[in-house]
């Protein structure tokens, strides 16, 4: 489908998956991971996508332009574990056509 984009997601076991993500279903990156079951249910998106649990933390590997971090995401990441320079919360990244080629790696479960 033409509104789908290609994303590379490396799961917590280090396996990289090429997935197609729809841009017209108001999905965020955390939901894409869940829809492909790349992390066990109950270990990702625990708060449902409110930037309140950091279970969807991921490391952005490509230099894709992403929406700027809002205060609540920044605050949550400041309390999370295994945080790196390129950490983002998947639930705060809405999938748009501009993200074609995005590459991310899931942070460890905590």
């Amino acid at each position, binding site marked *: 489908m033409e509104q789908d984009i290609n994303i590379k997601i490396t799961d917590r076991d280090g396996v990289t998956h090429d997935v197609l993500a729809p841009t017209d279903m108001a999905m965020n990156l955390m939901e894409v991971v869940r829809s492909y079951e790349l992390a066990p249910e*109950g270990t990702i998106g625990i708060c449902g996508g409110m930037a309140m649990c950091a279970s969807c933390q991921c490391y952005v590997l490509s230099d894709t332009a992403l929406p700027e971090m809002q205060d609540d995401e920044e605050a949550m990441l400041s309390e999370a574990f295994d945080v790196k320079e390129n950490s983002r919360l998947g639930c705060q990244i809405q999938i748009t056509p501009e993200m074609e080629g995005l590459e991310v790696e899931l942070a460890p479960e*905590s």
Partner: protein
Amino acid sequence: MIKTDILIIGAGPTGLFTVFEAGLLKLKCHLIDALPQQGGQCSELYPKKPIYDIPAYPEILAGDLTHKLMEQCKQFEPGFTLGERAETIEKQEDGSFIVTTNKGTKHQAPVVAIAGGLGSFEPRKPLIHNIAHFEDKGVEYMIKEPEMYRNKKVVIAGGGDSALDWSIYLSDIASEVTLIHRRNEFRGHLDSVEKVQELKNAGKINLITPAEVIGIVGDKNVKAVVVKQAQHIEKEFEIQCDHFIPLFGLSPKLGPIANWGLEIEKNAIKVNNALDYQTNIPGIYAIGDVNTYPGKLKLILCGFHEATLMCQSAYQIINPGKRFVLKYTTVSGVNGFDGTRKEAPKAVVKKIE
């Protein structure tokens, strides 16, 4: 021993609504929850956030939903064991179950309904290599007994409401309170942030930001923590203390329920959704977010439906062979265990002249 008809594990929306549905069938309920208050995720994670898909509520705050559910079920006098986690379950010869909590409280019931959501909320532990060695020897992830910090030196880490609130509270009790956070900004209620600022200015709270505890020093008990501060230039130093309290929030874990012999799939309990949401162990049901079946949706409204069907099935276990038909509350009213009765007002029969 606490005895009841249906023992509910989890006092979130699904567990609370079960009390109402069971009450209509004259079944008594008791609920166990690891959190100190009712409401589950709704009160612990997002009490001030709106929910838009509760039927007939175009918008309701999660905290308000909890209050409404409490109000709806109160005439059925549910019992609560709060702040304790259901740990073990033992089947008795008479078919009933005894569930024991981590604090040793025992509960007995012929039917157990697990309405545990994503599991019990456990503290998130920071990744400090030797922290496990000092657990309960000066490291506490939750404050249960504030008096134990009287005249002690305390280091609190975290940037949310609990870190702020406990720093404020302990500043009156402990001899020294140090609050450490990775950023200069805290996220919490405005008045808590302002109060900490005030106490910092008054020299009652020692604030260290942006910094992180990276190690613990001590022999048997905590003697100091190693702090890495990143202001201007990075430096490491020790702070003498008797207690280190990391408050990094709670995350749900399925926990001991996973060892009850129940069939688990995708971190959830498999149930028979064609019939009554019973698990592979007869007499144990799983309802709400904690269960799974083909097509499962983790929605509060689905939990309500599952609770209702589960109660009908539980009635059969508790009252074998006893006849019963579903009644509408509009027709039959609601008779509380507390002697109250709610009913539709009678129609007036009067001649019009």
